[in-house]
């Protein structure tokens, strides 16, 4: 090794072993040490599902497009969780790292921004998958919500939703100047996004203009895609394109403007 020390200068660095797996693992551990995030992201949505599923009518409702309440709300709950993780938990974490100077410290190592962002992205997508599967199983076995019969369409739609939201989260993390600002932006975005997803008013009850607008928001495009998949209908191509576009644009801007330092 020693002879290499002085002579390797100028040669390309040897191929680097990861850093990415370690970074992802450590970030997961840190997340597991945040009980509040774990509660809101994992336990709360499933609990809410049980409360809503047990207390609402099991009859199809005309106002829900002829569907049962819980069938309409299951994808909304999925979106709620994904959004919370992507737009609230992750940007807050990254912004606090920047506030502390931890990102700058990382920038002095060979790890690089790409691995750091990839680790955050994988954690958001990974946890989202776990919660979505959990919600799907509970809603199916407890409340007879159909499992998606258009499986490929569902997987495509839900993964694109997750990457779109995670990319928006990275964008918030990149642009926010502090953890407080990240929290504020995340919070401000949360309400319109969830509104168009149908958290307060199901899309079926929205006026035609509102509904048209919602199809071009990430969660507004996601929810009907998932509901459709439940009934074997291929998610609308426009919806998938909308989700992919959000992912690409947000990622592009996030990596372009990512700052290690305040």
């Amino acid at each position, binding site marked *: *090794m*020693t002879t290499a*020390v*002085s002579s390797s*200068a*100028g*040669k*390309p*660095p*040897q191929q*680097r*072993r*990861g*850093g990415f*797996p*370690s*970074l992802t693992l*450590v970030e997961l*551990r*840190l997340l597991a*040490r*945040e009980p509040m995030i774990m509660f809101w992201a994992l336990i709360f949505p499933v609990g809410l599902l049980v409360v809503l599923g047990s207390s609402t009518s099991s009859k199809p409702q005309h106002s829900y497009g002829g569907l049962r309440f819980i069938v309409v709300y299951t994808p909304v709950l999925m979106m709620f969780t994904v959004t919370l993780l992507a737009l609230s938990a992750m940007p807050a974490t990254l912004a*606090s*790292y920047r506030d*502390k*100077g*931890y990102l*700058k*410290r990382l*920038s*002095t*190592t*060979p*790890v*690089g921004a790409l691995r750091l962002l990839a680790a955050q992205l994988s954690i958001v997508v990974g946890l989202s998958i776990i919660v979505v599967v959990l919600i799907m199983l509970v809603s199916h076995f407890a409340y007879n919500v159909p499992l998606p019969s258009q499986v490929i369409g569902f997987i495509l739609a839900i993964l694109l939703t997750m990457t779109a939201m995670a990319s928006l989260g990275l964008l918030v993390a990149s642009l926010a100047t502090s953890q407080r600002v990240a929290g504020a932006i995340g919070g401000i975005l949360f309400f319109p996004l969830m509104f168009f997803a149908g958290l307060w008013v199901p899309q079926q009850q929205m006026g035609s203009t509102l509904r048209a607008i919602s199809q071009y928001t990430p969660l507004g495009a996601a929810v009907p895609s998932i509901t459709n998949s439940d009934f074997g209908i291929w998610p609308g191509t426009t919806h998938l394109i909308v989700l992919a576009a959000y992912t690409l644009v947000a990622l592009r801007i996030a990596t372009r403007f990512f700052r290690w*330092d305040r």
Partner: protein
Amino acid sequence: MEPMSTTMSDITTDTTTDTVIAVDDLRVRYGATLAVDGVSLAIRRGEIFGILGPNGAGKTTTVECIGGLRTPDSGSISVLGLDPRRDRDAVRERLGIQLQSSELPDKLRVGEALELFAAFYPEPADPAQLMEMLGLTEKRTTRFANLSGGQRQRLSIALALIGRPQVAILDELTTGLDPQSRRETWKLIEGIRDQGLTVILVTHFMEEAEYLCDRVALLHHGRIRAIDTPANLGAGLGQRISFRATPALDLEQLRALPDVRAVNEQGGRVVIEGSGDVVAAVIALLVQERVVPEQTRVEQSTLDDAFVALTSEADAELAAASSAEAR
């Protein structure tokens, strides 16, 4: 993995005087002010090189340029023959940087932090061994938030060394530490140097530089005012002799002596500063005048004095320049 000590001691068998870091005419501008104004440095392998200066002198900016964290407006930098911006990854693998006031996530444990950073480098040191060396073994499972200032500082040094760097940059290493921890940290740095690492130490503590550094650069308003060993920088100013004189002495007689630069009376004591044979000349005069000096003190000027002298000189120049401009 080879034990760290073998590798490091092998490095010292290289030529000990070759330049590992060369900075030439570095300039960095923040808005209207030049934070770094034409800094040139040549740092040799295996030395502890101090960069000293008051707050805002441009110390951190200079080392951030060396570390590739900041792009200079002009000038060139070579680190181990590499360009910190162009050969970013190669430089990062060979350079360990301890940043001023950078924290880790609150809930990250000491051991986890070292394992994590070890994974970033091609041939890292053994985290367990580093923890042992820095007295962190007992704190292995302690979260960052629960570490004391001294422990955080030691962890920070450990992280700067985990990639087995050839050069370590330590920025404001002991700021905020109590005197006991400061001394302990100094011992650690000496230990690191003995392993053959080149260390750049950024500090505003004269005592620290005097204790640790082989050479120091005095930085003031973005310019280097002097580069030398701490002893030489002090010696350039000469000596100071002070005493209580009975009977009182005519200060003008003292001022007339060769090699005397300044004579003052402070709290009943006569204080004479000068160079060369000033002490001998003063004593000869005292004998001749039959004056008995009491509580005599002879001091070699320190780095501290050198620093004050150089910075006040520079400030006077600046003031003169700006008043000339105003006219």
